């Protein structure tokens, strides 16, 4: 499955300062579709290069990280249960506080 992953608000520092990642993710064994839960585990293993605790806490993203699936807050699509489809764009963004 072809996906575009984007990291922002400082999260890109966890993946070699690269903001946009075009990736190919296979369906997990025996699963009918790819959920955000699968994808987070995949990102943790294949994309995050350092300080994973700055990205994940338990099985979800750490506090202060917004997840957007096709420009829409994942809270509105079922969070970890959100189903991901071909060509989806998933954005992970850390909230900023500076000014």
């Amino acid at each position, binding site marked *: 499955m072809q996906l575009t992953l984007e990291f922002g608000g400082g999260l890109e520092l966890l993946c070699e300062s690269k903001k946009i990642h075009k990736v190919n993710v296979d369906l997990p064994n025996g699963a009918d579709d790819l959920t955000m839960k699968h994808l987070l585990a995949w990102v943790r293993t294949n994309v995050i290069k350092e300080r994973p605790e700055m990205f994940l806490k338990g099985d979800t993203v750490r506090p202060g990280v917004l997840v957007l699936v096709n420009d829409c807050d994942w809270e509105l699509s079922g969070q970890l249960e959100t189903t991901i489809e071909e060509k989806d764009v998933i954005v992970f963004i850390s909230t*900023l506080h500076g*000014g």
Partner: protein
Amino acid sequence: MEANGGDSSEIVRELEELKLRKAEIEHRISTLEAKLHETAAVERLDAAVSNGYSSPAAIEHGLDHGLSPDQIYRYSRQLLLPSFGVEAQSNLLKSSVLVIGAGGLGSPALLYLAACGVGRLGIIDHDVVELNNMHRQIIHTEAFIGHPKVKSAASACRSVNSTIKIDEHVEALRTSNALEILSQYDIIVDATDNPPSRYMISDCCVLLGKPLVSGAALGMEGQLTVYNHNGGPCYRCLFPTPPPTSACQRCSDSGVLGVVPGVIGCLQALETIKLASMVGEPLSERMLLFDALSARIRIVKIRGRSSQCTVCGDNSSFDKHQFKNFDYEDFTQFPLFAGSLKLLPKESRISSEEFKEILQKKERHILLDVRPSHHYKIVSLPDSLNIPLANLESRLNELTSVLKEKEDVNAETGPCTSLYVVCRRGNDSQRAVQYLRESGFDSAKDIIGGLEAWAADVNPNFPTY
């Protein structure tokens, strides 16, 4: 000239005084000019009336939107906008806005809000203008370096528009004064730079039922949204749990390109103008994400109000009394003001003067500098060891072996080696000492106020940044 040759601090002081007086005189001139212009406009109208072009009654009735001739002239380009017009301008003139923070975001926001004719504009900030702010805090001028940002910003706003009311709040916003100050305004603009302020301001807006125009910027990125508007979410609906402190950076610590908060501050002014004048669609339940380097702006849909929210949710019992007693620094583990964090007991800390004595007495110690390495490269104290806070856990063995080396060399003499920890301002050093003590380094102490205190109290020639 009577100046004693060589006494440059005296000259600098006099120069500053003169610059401040110059700014005050310029402000007085612009106020008088505006007054003169207004008087002249009224006289022109009177003349037109007495010449029989129009009757006084017609004029009075012609202006029933409440705008004076001077206001019509000043705001004409907005009145000419079909989507804005006299009604929106009239709403704007009746509105009141509080901008919290006169920094990188607040600077352009305040200038535009003053210029466009918000009726009453409040400015709150406890800080003073510094040279290293000026690349982004464009409302301030060099004449105001060392003076309160609120005074400087108010003077700039008045020189742009002397006809609006400007309230100066030269104080820090705290739970003790927030309700009273915010309640005096229709719309609140969050232009602060830290998590505890953001939670405090949002909670206060929920309690008072005020819309909150929230902006943030860091490095090359910015974010913008409107909270607590028309049934939309509050800050806590989005971020019920504060982020780890390692994910909370200030511009003064991580850097920022000046124009980036400028862009977000302008957009905050725009959203505020829309709310105050009641035109357009506010950026509620949506968030604007700005990436300056790739020149991309993305507007995303965010969740609505959460019924589970501990502050604005259906079963929330959060009230004004709880707000006043809520410890936002403890909640976020982050100081409201740079340098104010108090994590450690007194006996785990020393002052920069005390550390100077330790150096003079050549007491056996290790000085650990926990700033990021690119900070360490700018300037550092001699004979210090740099392990950035973010890597401390993984590089603890380095510290253990350096300590052991010292112990071995000095095996027969005196007490054991002490460990002192320093950072830029004395926040990260406290976090490091807390962690080190938990990890068995019982002698670890932090230097209060960090290198900034060292420069201020011990060595004035030590560079600050």
